[in-house]
């Protein structure tokens, strides 16, 4: 087992960071503070500005306005090679004309590490990523997972204060992706190094991050722990993006400081939090697994099955509420043989009686 490496890690502070490409406002006034040792995920659809934000932290793009601080140091004006960051690229960017050893040693040589210390440090990094014995291979001889490990070893060996990940797993197949993200998380946690991780994969972000920052159209929409985002999405975009796709308009019945009651599809639901603005239109988020489904007309709300599909271990129905036309997604985990409804079958659905919050 490799010796523990101690890292002088640092916080990251983005202050009103803005990037304007010719016509496009790619990043719009983003302010974000990352505590030392935290892994924060920038999550959002493609074109939301998450990669541009990451590239500004690394120094590949100049911000149009705003500042970037790593620890107490303002790095906004610093060229990439002077910054205490190391990045793991989507394509890994392993130098094709160098061996694994030379790739890992590259950053040390560039930073003028004394020659006699280099071999030891390289070996240490390779051991950490379980790459012993691969030193002389060329990157093209390695599997995708191994290339990923070399990329991480190459980034870690220079002891950066901040690690940056640009969709590092998107070139791997589904199974390896799940395994590698566990490994990444493990290493990051063990070394306690501040990290910014960009992805468009909600599941990946939620499984790896301490904090998730959701970005949309250049703006930072919501920052919170995965549980926070899941329970209290700030708006419809976040709710839909984190995979809670049943956002249903609701009628406000009454509200007070402790909570509110709303009417949804003729049924009253209690919200643990009052709406942000008292008179505004509100919506509720109904999580697909919180909705019940039963056969025939045993009370509840009458609906008809539109489609059904297995999504992993979950049987997912799309049902249309009779008369109203609202479409709902209903997930049944571990469905029994008896609870199986054909397309077009008449069913009855039950909504949850309580939701954490309302959207306005």
């Amino acid at each position, binding site marked *: 087992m490799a010796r523990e490496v101690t890292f002088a890690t640092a916080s990251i502070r983005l202050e009103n960071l803005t990037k304007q490409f010719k016509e496009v406002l790619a990043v719009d006034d983003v302010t974000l503070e990352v505590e030392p040792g935290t892994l924060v995920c920038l999550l959002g659809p493609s074109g939301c500005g998450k990669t541009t934000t990451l590239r500004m932290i690394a120094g590949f793009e*100049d911000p149009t306005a705003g500042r970037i601080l790593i620890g107490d140091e303002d790095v906004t004006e610093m060229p990439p090679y002077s910054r205490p960051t*190391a990045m793991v690229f989507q394509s890994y*960017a392993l*130098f094709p004309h160098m061996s694994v050893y030379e790739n890992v040693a590259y*950053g040390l040589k560039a930073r003028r590490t004394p020659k006699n210390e280099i071999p030891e440090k390289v070996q240490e990094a390779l051991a950490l990523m379980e790459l012993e014995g691969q030193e002389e291979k060329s990157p093209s001889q390695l599997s995708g997972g191994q290339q990923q490990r070399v990329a991480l070893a190459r980034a870690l060996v220079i002891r950066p204060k901040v690690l940056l990940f640009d969709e590092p797993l998107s070139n791997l197949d589904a199974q390896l992706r799940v395994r590698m993200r566990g490994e990444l998380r493990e290493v990051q946690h063990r070394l306690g190094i501040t990290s910014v991780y960009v992805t468009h994969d909600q599941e990946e972000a939620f499984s790896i991050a301490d904090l998730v920052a959701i970005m949309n159209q250049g703006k930072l929409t919501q920052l919170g722990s995965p549980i926070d985002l899941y329970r209290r999405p700030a708006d419809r975009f976040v709710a839909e993006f984190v995979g809670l796709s049943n956002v249903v308009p609701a009628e406000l019945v009454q509200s007070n400081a402790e909570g509110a009651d709303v009417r949804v599809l003729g049924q009253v639901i209690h919200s643990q939090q009052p709406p942000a603005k008292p008179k505004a239109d509100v919506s509720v988020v109904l999580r697909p697994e919180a909705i019940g489904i039963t056969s025939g007309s045993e009370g509840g709300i009458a609906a008809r099955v539109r489609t059904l599909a297995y999504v992993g271990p979950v049987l997912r129905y799309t049902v249309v509420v009779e008369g109203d036309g609202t479409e709902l997604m209903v997930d049944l985990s571990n469905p029994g043989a008896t609870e199986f409804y054909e397309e077009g079958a008449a069913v009855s659905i039950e909504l949850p009686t309580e939701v954490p919050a309302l959207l306005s």
Partner: protein
Amino acid sequence: MLMAKSIPLSDRIRNRRPLIIIAVVQIAVLTLVAMWVMDVVIVEDTREVVDGVETITFRRELIGDPLLFVLAAIGMSLPLLSSRLRREPVMMLAVQLAIVALLIFVLWPVAQVFVEGFESTEEEGAYSLEHFQRLLTKPMVARATRNTLWLGVTSATLSTIIGAVVAYTLTLTDIPWKRWLRILVVITLISPPFAVSFAFILLFGRRGLITYDLLGIQEWTIYGPDGIILVQLISNIPLAVLILMAVFASMNRDLEDAAEDLGAKTFRVLRTITFPLVTPALLTAWLLNFISSISDFGNPMLIGGGFQLLAPQAFIQRVELFDPQLSAALAMLLVIPALIAFGAQHRISNRRSYVTVTGGARTGHVRKLPGWYKWPLFSIVLFLGLFNLLLYGSIFVGALVKNWGFDYTPTVDHLQALLVTANQLKNSLFVAIAAGVLGGFIGIGLAWLVSRQRFPGRGALDFSGTLMYAIPGTVVGIGYIIAFNAAPYLFTGTFLIIIIAYAFRRLPVGLRSGVAADKQIDPSLEEASLDLGASRPRTFAKITFPLLRTAFFAGVIYIFIRSMTDLSSAIFLSSAKTQLFTVQMFNVMVRGSPSEAAAFAALLIVIIVIALGILGRVTGKSFVDVFRIG
């Protein structure tokens, strides 16, 4: 609001440090430029004799080009406006050096051609339009201009049409012997262009093997406009073939199939799908051949007879009739259509290409053709290939007989006579190798600047780097002579002027191939290097350059070959001390015996084949790849 936050003092000092380095470097570079383009000399002012004592007063006088210095200073100050470059002194310096180099060695000499035509002959340093009027009203000038444009249009049109037929046949039909024919039809690319007209003279001249010995024709000669057109076709068809073969080969067959599937018949498919898809390439081939045709110097000199053209006349007026103003005016008239064609080509290539290969598309599918369609196409290609073989054969055989046209007894005398020119050969090899290496480095460095870095004026730098493609060799020669002839440039008559002229003249090809190769490299490789703490020069040396090595080497070989075979610039720039092989060869072709000249041409071809062989060994590229980048 952002400004309110004060930046810590240590940061401020660190942020200023590059500026101090920049300032020091600026002053050093500017001083060097000043010393290079200007000088202060002491000249005699007055001479008085008082009481038998002679008093001479001297004054200091500034010579050289203060204007060039001012332009260089302005050019160098432009990058200072970029905050991105100010942060990275090395990049700043690279951009500034590129600007100064292109200004001094590309824009300045070309601009000189425009200026000299206006220079008054009576008064030194004065300019007049009246003088220029005199030049333009000369009947020779009008005739040469008309002839040049006529030749350019005819030659470009014919070579593009034939090139398109040949390229289509070689890529998309099922004719036999394709592999060999592909090499034979473009083989004339490797020889100096005027070797083709020399071979034509051997075969069809007054004492030509075919016209005189086989057919007994004596009234008709190859000399004149017909001859030039034929020779230019043979020299220019290969360029059209290479451009169009690449397009035909990458054309998505699915598009034509889709059109047929929708009910279009063969001819409609050709008219509505195939032709529009290749139009940009056809235009490109036409424009490049037009430039090549009007720039042609060697062929008209050898085979033009009395047919007056701008490029040869510009030489004759300067060197033989000692009228530099008229020569410059002719050169200027030559540059204008070439620049227009170049601008048009630039626009076309900047437009998005239709011929984009998407993943999974079937490309370059060979069609099975009916015989009545296939054999005529095959005969055209075969004829062209065999004709090229005949031209080259005549050169090699010509070198091995006593006196071509009169005495066909085999001999090795002419090969032995080549030993006399060992000196010129050595000079040419030295110049071509030096120009190749210099041009290769500048090309790859400039390509990296314009394709990977962002700074204001990048487009202008790219344009200046490519501009020389449009400038005929004669104009480059004349421009360099005018620009660097007098003190303080201790430059004319040296090898250095030839090397620099060649390196910058062929820079466009090095630049283009470098840019193309740069696009093949994942930009995150360079970013990874910077991110790991390597400076930009280190990143270039350790990551970018090793990955661009093949492109660099191909560029070096291309420039070497083009410099080895150049005549149009060499004839102005070489001097008694710097004699070049091609100039000597040209003189022998004009004045000496055909067989002696054939030995020169044969040796040159052998040298080029060796250079291409080395290239193939080192990079695995064929000679076709090298010339495709041109």
